[in-house]
């Protein structure tokens, strides 16, 4: 059991800075998910915590110990790799026991721990098999077993489910969540899967270009994205982001197409600047709405029927900005139609165009 503290952590490869100063406190027993686009430094950050990558600047502590100079095996961590990294010439049992054997833990204790882990992960019948005779999901479980038997203070996962097919991924996702809850071990999980990002962790860190753009509960990140990047990255389909002007009093925005929307709560002092106006496709409705809702009209271009939902792509005005709406159920409409959309005032987001920061 341990908390992880990152203090001004930076990483450079030669002249290129990949992690540009991360400050974090991950609480004991917490499950934190790191999400971000490819190449943003997720793996690098995780591997620095693991001790597989040297820290250029700053300090990482696990528990009460500064671990900067410690070998991975001395940090009391366990890591699950994307491609499992099982030892192909060892049986499942030996794979799990290898680290314990090196630590010179007595044989019967090793046996107890491996049997216990096999039981939790339902691997009992496969203990004697080599990894090559297992399915992807089973291999993944062995990799988790190898992590569990170490009884570490911290679990680190680097996209552990990305090699599995969709169905298995759902199943393993639930298993990992349950396992983490049962064991209560502090965990850091890297992914670029939206669903994993939203559902797995207590907190979500959105990383972009080596900077943490936002750290908060998944719902916070979804409801109040701190930056334009986070707004566009979290959620599928992505949030509609439109250029707009905020008037001097901060009471209304004018979209590029000309549509004017007055804000429920004027932003006052922040008025008079270019802004990015954001609204999620799922928050646009074509029915209901009351006197307080904001209205837009959409020239329909493309319709995608997903079964449960319908995605409507269109433009504001004749040739205005593009916009997507996600409407419930199956809708009868055709390209060329004009659709009146409304949205609740509280579902809109405004960001400063220059800094990308959230306003209000």
């Amino acid at each position, binding site marked *: 059991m341990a908390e992880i503290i990152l203090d001004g952590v930076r990483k450079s490869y030669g002249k290129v800075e990949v992690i540009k100063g991360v400050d974090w406190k991950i609480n004991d027993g917490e499950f934190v998910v790191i999400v971000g686009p490819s190449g943003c430094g997720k793996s690098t950050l995780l591997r620095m915590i*693991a*001790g*597989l990558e040297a820290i250029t600047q700053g300090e990482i502590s696990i528990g009460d110990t500064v671990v900067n100079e410690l*070998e*991975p*095996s001395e940090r009391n*961590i*366990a*890591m699950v*790799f*994307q*491609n499992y*990294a*099982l*030892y*192909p*010439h060892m049986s499942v049992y030996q794979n799990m026991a*290898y*680290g314990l054997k*090196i*630590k010179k833990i007595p044989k019967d204790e090793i046996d107890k721990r491996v049997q216990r882990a096999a039981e939790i992960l339902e691997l009992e019948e496969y203990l004697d098999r080599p990894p*090559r005779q297992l399915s992807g999901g089973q291999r993944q479980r062995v990799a988790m077993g*190898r992590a569990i038997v170490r009884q570490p203070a911290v679990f680190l996962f680097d996209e552990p489910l990305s090699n599995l097919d969709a169905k298995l991924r759902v199943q393993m996702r639930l298993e990992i969540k349950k396992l983490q809850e049962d064991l209560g071990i502090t965990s850091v999980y890297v992914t670029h899967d939206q669903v994993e990002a939203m559902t797995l962790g207590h907190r979500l860190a959105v990383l972009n270009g080596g900077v943490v753009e936002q750290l908060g509960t998944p719902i916070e990140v979804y409801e109040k994205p701190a930056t334009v990047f986070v707004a566009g990255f979290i959620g599928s389909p992505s949030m509609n982001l439109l250029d707009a002007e905020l008037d001097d009093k901060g009471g209304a925005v004018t979209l590029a197409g000309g549509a004017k929307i007055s804000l429920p709560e004027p932003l006052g002092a922040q008025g008079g600047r270019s802004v990015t106006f954001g609204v999620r496709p799922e928050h646009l409705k074509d029915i209901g709405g009351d006197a307080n809702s904001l209205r837009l009209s959409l020239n329909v271009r493309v319709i995608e029927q997903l079964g449960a939902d319908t995605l409507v792509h269109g433009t504001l005005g004749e040739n205005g900005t593009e916009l997507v709406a996600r409407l419930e159920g199956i809708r009868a409409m055709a390209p060329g139609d004009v659709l009146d959309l409304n949205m609740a005032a509280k579902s809109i987001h405004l960001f400063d165009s220059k800094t990308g920061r959230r306003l209000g």
Partner: protein
Amino acid sequence: MIEHRPIITVLAHLTLILGIAIVAFPIWVTFVAASHDAVRMTQVPLPMWPGDQFFVNLNKAMFEGIAGAGGIPVGMMMLNSLVVALMIATGKIVISLLSAFAIVYFKFPFRMGFFWMIFLTLMLPVEVRILPTFEVVANLGMLNSFWGLSIPLIASATATFMFRQVFLTVPDEMLEAARVDGAGPMRFFWDILLPLSRTNIAALFVILFIYGWNQYLWPLLITTDASMFTVVMGIKQMLESAEQTTEWHLIMMTTLLAMLPPVVVVLTMQRMFVKGLTETDK
């Protein structure tokens, strides 16, 4: 083959049989010659079918040798050859494994420099550097010793490259997983890399054993003491130094014996050998 026309099957078999006959005929001649006595071997036409002297010749060659060629028992030469071939094969494998390990997994100054130096030795087989090497071995007092026979042949660029290739196919995560498990470098080498290279080691062993066994020029040069002769150079010695008539029946018997160990090695390690050359199960 997908086709099953009988004529093709027959043709295929005929070709194969012909091929085998061409390869096997000299061996048959050797075997026949080794089973007759000295007198019969001087008469024309030479025999085509085995005689009854096989075990007599075997006994004589193994334990007495050819009097005219110094009377060194072939058994002893075979033993020398065996020791040398084993030393060369094992030595080459151990050195190459370690140097490939160093080059792939360690960062040290002039790493690429060392890599290219090893590469350059490809251009320097024993035959090319034979005089300086002889001098070094002589100065070290290793003439007429197993060390002198094997050490100059042990460094091997080819094997180093092969193991480097094998190690490069091992994913980085495997090393990282081992580091998280607490395995140090030598532990990783011993517990992970060695078992993963098992089939390649076996394949290489076969090739190198035969290479060592077949050495001729080098042993010829540095052994003057008859008790250190190897069997391949021994055969040549028998041909040259025969004072009276050449004792073909014993020479052929020796040849037959000299062919045996490589055959045994290939046959016993055949499965591993093929696996090592073809399999990519990493």
